[in-house]
């Protein structure tokens, strides 16, 4: 039986960490992720976990300590946001290329400047090509469920990659909502023991990690890393299936909301998807065939599956809570359109950059986007591909 509770997103993630009981947590506080290590350190102090908690002096050190610990065979978790993630930068790549499945809760926040503590996705979107698996969660429930599943995904022998479990700062991290928790013993059983194939503390099979790797071998290692990311897709679905059997909660690479017969659809990430679902329901009441695709797994990007989900649509709007500053749309838009290219040509796809720096996204904003899509379907004409919504013009 699930445990009915009400928790903020950060509380829920800290509870997941308590239940996972990692060997090492090394963290440095930054708004809005601070509460995660804060709550977790109280579990450490109260003896509710066996974790070695390392309060480091920067996020660079946090990720370095996590890499060292994971290399030594420890299951390792940390959390950060925005500038903290940016300070981890070079270590992110090292964790991924050393194939160390460090777990990182990213509480999405605008990456300065000007300085801003509120939610958008500019932090994790910047890290989308760092070699980490990226999973996004709409609610506190999904943030909790995703972290538990992330452990199994990252540590899988076919994957061995670090995982970012991302959720929206404040909107999800600090809002209290209903949640169904899993019993401690069931989580323990689900995540199991971390049994790395190679680690530095294995005195019977000593290994070296992080050796110089030049023209002769580097490319092979990167090619193998790329394959691990491809393998991750299958593993993510297998773990989701097992999780479904445990909890009854279904997860995939993305969520399709009323997409069966949808003619117009929005593709979006994280909490805004919930607001958009409300709009879809209202539009459906009016007989509009509106649907929604909420990306859960952004890395690896589910190319074929996205194409299948959108192929019957006439017009699609991709919403990006981060700008690429490339004069050609946001990161999600780029990925969705390149997925469709040559596979489902003819669908009109437009882009909206929205909610930067925590600008609130109202149901009216999303309704306006659907109305624009309706207009495109009616006239067959796209007036503007790259758009901003919610900004003062």
């Amino acid at each position, binding site marked *: 039986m699930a445990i009915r509770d009400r928790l903020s997103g950060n509380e829920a993630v800290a509870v997941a960490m308590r239940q996972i009981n990692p060997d090492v947590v090394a963290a440095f506080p930054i708004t809005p992720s601070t509460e995660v290590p804060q709550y977790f350190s109280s579990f450490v102090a109260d003896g509710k976990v066996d974790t070695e908690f390392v309060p480091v002096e920067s996020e660079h050190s946090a990720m370095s300590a996590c890499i060292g610990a994971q290399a030594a065979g420890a299951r390792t978790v940390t959390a950060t946001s925005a500038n903290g993630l940016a300070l981890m930068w070079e270590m992110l790549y090292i964790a991924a290329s050393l194939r160390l499945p460090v777990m990182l809760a990213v509480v999405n926040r605008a990456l300065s400047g000007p300085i801003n503590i509120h939610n958008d996705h500019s932090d994790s979107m910047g890290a989308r090509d760092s070699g980490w698996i990226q999973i996004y969660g709409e609610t506190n429930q999904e943030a909790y469920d995703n972290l538990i599943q992330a452990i199994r995904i990252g540590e899988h022998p076919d994957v061995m990659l670090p995982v970012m479990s991302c959720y929206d700062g*404040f909107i999800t991290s600090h809002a209290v*909502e*209903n949640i169904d928790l899993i019993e401690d013993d069931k989580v323990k059983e689900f995540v199991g023991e971390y049994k790395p194939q190679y680690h530095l503390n294995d005195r019977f099979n000593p290994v070296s990690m992080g050796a110089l790797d030049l023209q002769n071998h580097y490319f092979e290692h990167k090619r193998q890393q790329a394959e691990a990311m491809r393998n991750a897709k299958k593993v993510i679905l297998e773990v989701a299936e097992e999780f479904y059997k445990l909890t009854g909660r279904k997860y995939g690479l993305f969520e399709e909301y009323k997409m069966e017969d949808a003619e117009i659809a929005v593709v979006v990430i994280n909490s805004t998807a*919930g607001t958009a679902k409300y709009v879809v329901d209202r539009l459906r009441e009016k007989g509009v065939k509106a649907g929604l695709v909420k990306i859960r797994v952004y890395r690896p990007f589910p190319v074929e599956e996205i194409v299948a989900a959108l192929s019957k649509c006439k017009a699609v709007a991709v919403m990006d809570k981060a700008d690429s500053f490339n004069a050609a749309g946001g990161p999600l838009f780029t990925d969705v359109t390149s997925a469709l290219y040559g596979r489902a040509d003819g669908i009109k796809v437009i882009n909206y950059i929205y909610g930067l720096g925590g600008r609130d996204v109202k149901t009216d904003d999303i309704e306006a986007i659907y109305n624009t899509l309706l207009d495109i379907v009616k006239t067959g004409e796209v007036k503007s591909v790259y758009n901003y919504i919610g900004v003062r013009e």
Partner: protein
Amino acid sequence: MSKVVEIRWHGRGGQGAKTASLLLADAAFNTGKYIQGFPEYGPERMGAPITAYNRISDEKITVHSNIYEPDYVVVVDETLLNSVDVTAGLKEDGAIIINTAKEPEEIRKKLKGYKGKVCTIDARTISIDCLKRYFPNTPMLAAVVKVSGIMDEEEFIKDMEESFAHKFASKPQVIEGNMQALKRALMEVKGL
């Protein structure tokens, strides 16, 4: 009662409007509802106007925006009426609940022509009488329950008694005062 009840709280940093919104969420949660309780974070400090929100529903809530057309507005500090547009978007068939010693019709003059229900509660007097200190949260919470009817009053009282017993396990002497404040507030809301 519409499907989702939306409540907006106005208070000042340090007065506990955020805590009150979370307490209300808690109480509603305990009666089996789906809830959201979230503050609007900013650079606020002690004394600065702050806003907090609740959504309460029998069904799962998916909207994650702020609340622009609340069913109820709660004003924890009446001096805010001079500086904050507290009735912005407030539904006419809803109500505003203000912490003041004044009568509803007197305070209505400050509400920019709001035509809906105006309720008042003298949370200061109740708090000082029952708790010997000024904690407007407890009486305001009861007033919201009374005016909105989001949960059964008896169930609310019972639930609060349990949660106070838990919360104040180390200082049981304050439980009675808090319970008294709740019960008095339920009786003393004006403008219903």
